[in-house]
């Protein structure tokens, strides 16, 4: 790993990371801060929930029991929006962090220095890992603080399990973004494929949850294995699934790394 490149890349991604982290934090705070109002609505909210189409409610993990606690309420938005937003940021950054140098023509500058390609790739992955950890850690801290402020008797084990699943899921999407970046042309606008992959995975699972006849679809989605919706009131860490998806993320990054070592650099 090269220190000068690491610092330069962090600085280069600072603005983008700040914007995305800000969006995720604002959203997290907004959800948690509106929970007390929902809770006060009591029966009216329960009526509203029961009026929703059953398939729709199942698809998005919405029901009156789930929304009876701040963790359940938060889990709906964590699964639908927060992990998607974090995944889009880290996966799109992963897809472009190496290829951007080629797209902008600066790869020639970088790779005519005494840096091995392995050092360039591993340094860029270290930057990506740092950005991932920052957005994940800051969001988790704000979520914990928000639940402590706006909720009562928070089941912290369930929160920890949900965030462990979120960690593995977003890391997997990040690895998939890195691999996409190595497979597609550097001139590709990666936002489309990345958003497609993440939203596609989510909706595949949502559709499968909504109708039993297509439940088999969920096997193709990581959301099946890494539960985020609080369906039954509590949640345990799926250690096996977490380990599997973290391992898959590392394998995807390793494949992209190997491709980078042996391919031509565009000028």
């Amino acid at each position, binding site marked *: 790993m090269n220190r*000068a490149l690491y610092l330069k890349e962090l600085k280069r991604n600072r603005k983008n990371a700040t914007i995305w982290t800000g969006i995720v934090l604002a959203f997290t705070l907004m959800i948690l801060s509106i929970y007390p109002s929902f809770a006060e609505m009591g029966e009216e909210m329960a009526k509203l929930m029961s009026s929703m189409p059953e398939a729709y409610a199942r698809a998005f993990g919405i029901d009156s029991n789930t929304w009876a606690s701040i963790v359940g309420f938060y889990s709906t938005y964590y699964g639908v929006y927060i992990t998607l937003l974090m995944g889009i940021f880290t996966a799109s950054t992963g897809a472009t962090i190496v290829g951007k140098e080629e797209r902008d023509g600066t790869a020639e500058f970088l790779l005519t220095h*005494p840096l091995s390609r392995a050092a360039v790739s591993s340094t860029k992955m270290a930057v990506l890992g740092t950005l991932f950890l920052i957005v994940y850690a800051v969001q988790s801290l704000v979520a914990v603080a928000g639940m402590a402020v706006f909720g009562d008797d928070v089941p912290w084990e369930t929160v920890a399990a949900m965030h462990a699943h979120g960690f593995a899921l977003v890391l997997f999407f990040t690895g998939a973004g890195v691999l996409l970046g190595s497979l597609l042309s550097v001139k590709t606008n990666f936002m489309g494929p990345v958003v497609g992959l993440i939203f596609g995975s989510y909706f595949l699972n949502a559709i499968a949850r909504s109708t039993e006849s297509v439940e088999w679809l969920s096997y193709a989605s990581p959301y099946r294995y890494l539960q985020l919706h609080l369906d039954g009131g509590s949640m345990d860490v799926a250690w096996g699934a977490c380990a599997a998806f973290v391992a898959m993320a590392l394998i995807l990054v390793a494949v992209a790394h190997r491709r980078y070592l042996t391919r031509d650099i565009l000028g």
Partner: protein
Amino acid sequence: MAAIELNGLTKSYGTSRGIDDVTLSVREGEMFGFIGPNGAGKSTAIRTMLGLLIPSSGTALIMGQDSVIQGHVIRKKVGYLPSEVHYYNEMTSRELLTYHADLMGLTDTSAEMEQLAATLELDLDRLISDLSFGNKKKCAIVQALLHQPDLLLLDEPTSGLDPLIQNRFFELLEARNAEGVTVFFSSHILSEIQRLCHRAAVIREGKITAIEDINSLLAKQMKKVRLVLEDGHAPELPTGASDAHWSGSKVTFDYVGATSDLVTWLAAQRVVDVTLNEPDLESIFMNYYRRES
């Protein structure tokens, strides 16, 4: 040990041509020209030497080390000036050159940076995005020289530079070469190669067609001669003249031979005006290849 040793170096891009079986050797301390028309494969050869492109076959040894396996070690000793400069637009030249020094593992290069920038009239504190092509090229020259490399790989280095700065750049190159730095100078402008280099390789359609001592190349170089003679004077053209076209008292012809013989012949004619032109590169090549074949 040769500074550069290319052995059967080939780079192909699927069906399109890159370079084919390029073999040449550049001695340490030599100024070596690499001349060929646009698209001949000059940049491909240099980018392969730097390890940016993976050779399809053959090897490139730079200061005895393989460009693919030991590329990162080689690049510590190499200054590279690309034909087209692409930098980080959000940086100033000073920030970029400091970043370059950091990547090179250098500590304090500010004095050298200031001196080179002053020589080339480069404002170090302007954003890269605000620089003209010529000024970006000046920044690239400072970058190539700043870390005191043992070998300079220069790819069309003068494009975008005005004649004054070109001249200063050539003086910098000559000074570095006098200190023992090897210079590999790629260009499609023959006069630049003539001025600086000891030997030159000619590349055409990806293949090396000749490696010549510059004096030998000059001796074989064709000149385009245009004469306006006094009315009624139509002498026999000198030995070495070809492709003559008469129009009244005016004649143009190609000349290959000793310049002194041409001057002696001209002195004996009733000449109103004379123009000797360095022909364009394609004409030199066509003439050169015709004679070589």
